[in-house]
């Protein structure tokens, strides 16, 4: 025959809908039910039984680590250059490489390596992305030593502009019908990079960092890591999770976390049979329009639920010393929940579709190269069993929930006397339980 099917098409997989045509098996109702019950019982126990004096904030700094110094800076520079090189390959592959999802490095690099591996790794090892990420590198190169005199717009200072790229990214990943096309990703990446560079040039590196929403999200997740920057600027070692207790999130950062949480939740919704029926028979722009409405709907539900809990918390603590800004005060407790959702939804994507990165890195432009001799490596689709995936999903959602409850509890006893602190936690706990049950229900398909 004509022999069109080469070795590449044998292992390659079409990544439609941003993240692939494979999803995990639905969890059984009993697994989800028991997990929800455990989460709930432990949370309510936490309300009364846990410590009554704040413990976590003092641990957040961690023990200082010395001796990284020059060697560390050299290593960071090397990694920075390597990441910039990979970034360049990914963007140019998107723009000039084969416009075929299964023969181009960019979709897997963007949706698996960048959006799953980097945030999860940051939460595990620390805020490395800020030191090596490509946009930070380019922003530093582009910013003038002395920023122009004009003050940056309030939208940048407040950090709200960061929601634009992240929102657009979620839309591309989860909704847009052509969101996995290399051309779309390549051009979007280039436009975004130019925007970040322009901001850096006009208003300096700090402004560029505030606009670079992905870096903000990744850095926030890195607060959960056992390694972090101490208040004195040195690196510190600490227990996992406690870093989040250090300083409250900015309002725009809370918004950003809720946006990503809503996006991940919509990803779950879109895998359910319910959504399958809603979207049934739609393709192309027709599907995109319905998906956009769905994404907005879930993001709004997630955000409004949190906002209402904040309002209720404000009311329950009114008249006390530290009143107001309830939603911002507890924003950090959303971080482990976001991480839990992220791991639950994308763990199997990382270990299964992630194997494609090795395959496609050998021929990033789809030109028939085999740079590393890995182009014909088969993907082992049974590397993790559905049972393992199921327990990872349950474990991460429940653990994220419990960690969120602990962080919120600690912040409440830091803010108020025990009686008020207890009272203040009802709305927070209600919204966290709602997120967790919602997350678990989504997992049952």
């Amino acid at each position, binding site marked *: 025959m004509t022999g069109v099917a080469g070795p590449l098409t044998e292992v390659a997989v079409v990544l439609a809908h941003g993240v692939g045509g*494979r999803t995990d098996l639905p969890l059984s109702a009993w697994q989800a039910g028991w997990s929800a019950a455990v989460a709930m019982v432990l949370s309510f126990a936490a309300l009364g039984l846990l410590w009554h004096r704040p413990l976590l904030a003092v641990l957040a700094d961690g023990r200082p680590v010395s001796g990284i110094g020059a060697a560390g800076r050299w290593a960071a520079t090397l990694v920075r250059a390597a990441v910039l090189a990979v970034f360049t390959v990914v963007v140019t592959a998107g723009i000039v490489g084969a416009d075929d999802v299964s023969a181009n490095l960019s979709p897997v690099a963007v949706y698996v390596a960048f959006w799953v591996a980097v945030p999860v790794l940051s939460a595990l090892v620390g805020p490395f992305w800020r030191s090596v990420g490509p946009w930070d590198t380019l922003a530093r190169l582009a910013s003038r030593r002395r920023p122009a005199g004009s003050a940056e717009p309030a939208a940048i200072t407040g950090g709200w502009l960061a929601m634009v790229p992240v929102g657009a990214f979620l839309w591309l990943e989860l909704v847009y019908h052509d969101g996995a096309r290399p051309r779309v990703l390549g051009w979007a990446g280039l436009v975004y990079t130019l925007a970040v560079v322009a901001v850096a040039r006009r208003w300096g590196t700090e402004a560029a960092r505030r606009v670079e929403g992905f870096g903000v999200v990744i850095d926030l997740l890195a607060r959960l890591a056992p390694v972090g920057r101490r208040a004195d600027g040195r690196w510190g070692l600490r227990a996992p999770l406690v870093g989040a207790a250090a300083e409250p999130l900015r309002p725009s950062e809370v918004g950003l976390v809720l946006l990503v949480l809503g996006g991940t939740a919509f990803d779950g919704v879109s895998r359910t049979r319910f959504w399958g029926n809603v979207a049934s028979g739609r393709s192309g722009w027709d599907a995109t329009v319905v998906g956009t409405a769905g994404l907005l709907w879930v993001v709004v539900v997630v955000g409004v639920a949190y906002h209402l809990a904040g309002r209720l918390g404000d009311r329950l603590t009114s008249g006390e010393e530290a009143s107001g800004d309830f939603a911002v005060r507890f924003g950090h407790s959303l971080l482990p929940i976001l991480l839990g959702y992220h791991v639950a939804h994308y763990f199997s994507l990382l270990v299964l579709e992630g194997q494609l990165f090795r395959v496609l890195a050998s021929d990033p432009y789809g030109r028939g190269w085999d740079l590393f001799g890995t182009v014909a490596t088969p993907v082992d689709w049974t590397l993790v069993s559905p049972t393992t995936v199921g327990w990872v999903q349950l474990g991460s959602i429940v653990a994220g929930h419990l960690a969120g409850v602990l962080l919120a509890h600690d912040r409440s006893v830091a803010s108020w006397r025990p009686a008020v602190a207890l009272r203040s936690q009802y709305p927070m706990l209600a919204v966290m339980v709602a997120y967790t049950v919602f997350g678990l229900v989504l997992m049952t398909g």
Partner: protein
Amino acid sequence: MTLNSVRRALVVLLAPLMLVVACGTGDGEAPVKEDGHGSHDHGSHDHGSLPGIVLDDLAEPPSVRIVVEPDGAGGATVEVVVDGIDLVVADQPFDHRPGEGHLHVSVDGTTVAMTADTKIHLVDLVDGHREVAVSLSSNDHRDYLLAGSLIGDSAMVVVTGGLAPIIPDHVFSVEVFEGQVVGGVPRFEVSVGDLVEIEVASDADDEVHLHTYDESVSVAGGGRAFLRVEATIPGVFEAELHGSGLKVFELQVS
């Protein structure tokens, strides 16, 4: 199990369908096995990616009609009546020449032969209803197209005395009509290791692709095609139409 072993399993399962004899015009039957039958096991990738040659401008475009008769011994004879084109053996180097072409023969959507003969003897078919289709292809194996469709003909034949049918563990069917999946997008639930057959009927030409398993099958407008997979990878997998991206069904393997 890896994707390759799935492929191997399918080749073994489907190989009997692919043994083909092309006979000369009457003088004895010299069985000739098609070359490289392992490489065109799914019969659909081959043409989908190449643009066809549109013959709409011809005053008298070529035509193909077929008559298929069972031979009672596990095979069928196909008589092809071709008008308006010269059939030539497509030898290397496959240069396209207007007015020349050859026939692509398929059984149940799987291409089994390429030939310039108008009398074809298919052997070692599986018992039961088989759909035989013949279409015109250029020397460089591109489809000739007329009004957006293949130039060809198809017919059903009831095969007897042939191979025992491979009985799948599950048989599902789904129908696409006017860009919609009739009755909503179904989710077919099977167990790991099951042999699954999914019948796809469509009112328009398209190709059905099952993600991750990376299996495709072409379906002709008004016809049906069979997607057969051994369910070795657990998970939920989407199948969609290659052309429109419409989701056709989900396969849940647990």
